[in-house]
């Protein structure tokens, strides 16, 4: 349901990844691994459509991706319910109860997001994925600041999403305890010789 062909990506005008291809089938999760600076975030941002690739093709991502990164797009002065309901309406869905259920947020529903702890905020940010109704989850380090219990909640939500025919592309370093392929992106690292039309190449 998501195909990426021969992708070359740049960060700050310098190629970081080249020749990367991957495919995701319904119900499949793919874990991205690689050291810091390998280009995981750049890859995820490109798939989410936030950054155009230098070359290569991304198919099946348009209007099907739910993206979650380090910043959750939460407003401190809105309650948990209001935050979720806002994103639900933006994505054209209306029912936020399943999302509250999945991440155990009922007890916090009327609290202002600004008063939540980092882990609670993260849970709220992940709950946002459920209200988007999008089939492809693109997640950048989703488990940062989550405790073991919350990680289990997330793994359960992910498993349910996959069981419904969704797919997920996740950059993470911890073991989520789910059936998932692992893709190490280190081999695709662009070398200094990579020529793909990055902005600084014209000057060399």
């Amino acid at each position, binding site marked *: 349901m998501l195909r990426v062909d021969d992708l070359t990506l740049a960060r700050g005008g310098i190629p970081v990844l080249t020749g990367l291809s991957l495919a995701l089938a319904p119900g499949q999760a793919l874990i991205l691994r690689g050291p810091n600076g390998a280009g995981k975030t750049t890859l995820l941002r490109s798939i*989410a*459509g*936030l*950054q*155009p690739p230098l070359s290569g093709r991304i198919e099946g991502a348009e*209007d099907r*991706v*739910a*993206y979650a*990164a*380090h*910043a*959750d*797009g*939460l*407003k*401190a*002065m*809105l309650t948990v319910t*209001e935050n979720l*309901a*806002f*994103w639900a*309406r*933006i*994505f*054209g869905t209306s029912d936020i109860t399943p999302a509250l259920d999945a991440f155990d947020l009922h007890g916090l529903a009327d609290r202002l997001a600004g008063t939540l702890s980092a882990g609670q905020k993260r849970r709220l940010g992940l709950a*946002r994925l459920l209200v988007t109704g999008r089939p492809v989850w693109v997640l950048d380090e989703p488990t940062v600041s989550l405790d073991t219990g919350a990680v289990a909640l997330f793994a359960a939500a992910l498993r349910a999403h996959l069981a419904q025919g969704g797919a997920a592309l996740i950059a993470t370093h911890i073991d989520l305890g789910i059936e998932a392929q692992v893709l190490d992106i280190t081999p695709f690292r662009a070398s200094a010789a990579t020529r793909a039309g990055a902005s600084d190449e014209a000057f060399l």
Partner: protein
Amino acid sequence: MRALLIRDLTLALRAGGGFGLGLAFFLIVTVLVPFSVGPQAELLQLIAPGVLWLGALLACLLSLDRLLALDFEDGTLDLLLTAPLPLEGALSVKALAHWLTTGLPLVLAAPVLGVLLNLAPAGYLWLVVSLAVGTPALSVIGCFGAALTVGIKRGGLLLSLLVLPLYVPTLIFGAEVARRGAGGQEVATPLLMLAGITCAVIALMPFASAAVLRMGLR
């Protein structure tokens, strides 16, 4: 889109949203003017329309750097970009919310401050009309400036430098309407020009704003 509008209005009205800040600034600027130019009633009457327009413009400018910067910091802009909502529309809505929380209160407060500056009786109507027609343009142009400077640290000052020259035509025609109105002259020409500028920027500016925002977030 309605959800975005409601959210922006709610945020502006909640604590820390900065609602009323522009209004207070407008009040203070207007109060400071007689201190700086002297209390003569005739002088104040002469400069009242211009001072009120300038005060409204600066009050509008004051809140612009919050228009997109907060949404940028917490990641909302990235998520909006992936949402099934045209960015042009989202920015129009944000400009509208900015106008409702900043421009509209200024329009309503202007007559009260006109009393402080001894505005000519004939001028009140045209002052309000010119501000009502002109301030939406200020919000929309300001949204473009905010989109240009969104990724820049300490972009606030730069934002003013970029936006103020763009405000010149609006200010000239708006203040001209208010001035002519106060002097009992015919106002149709500048008013039509002002309305023309407002309509044009509302129609076209969101495209430029969305384009620069996409470039800036890349």
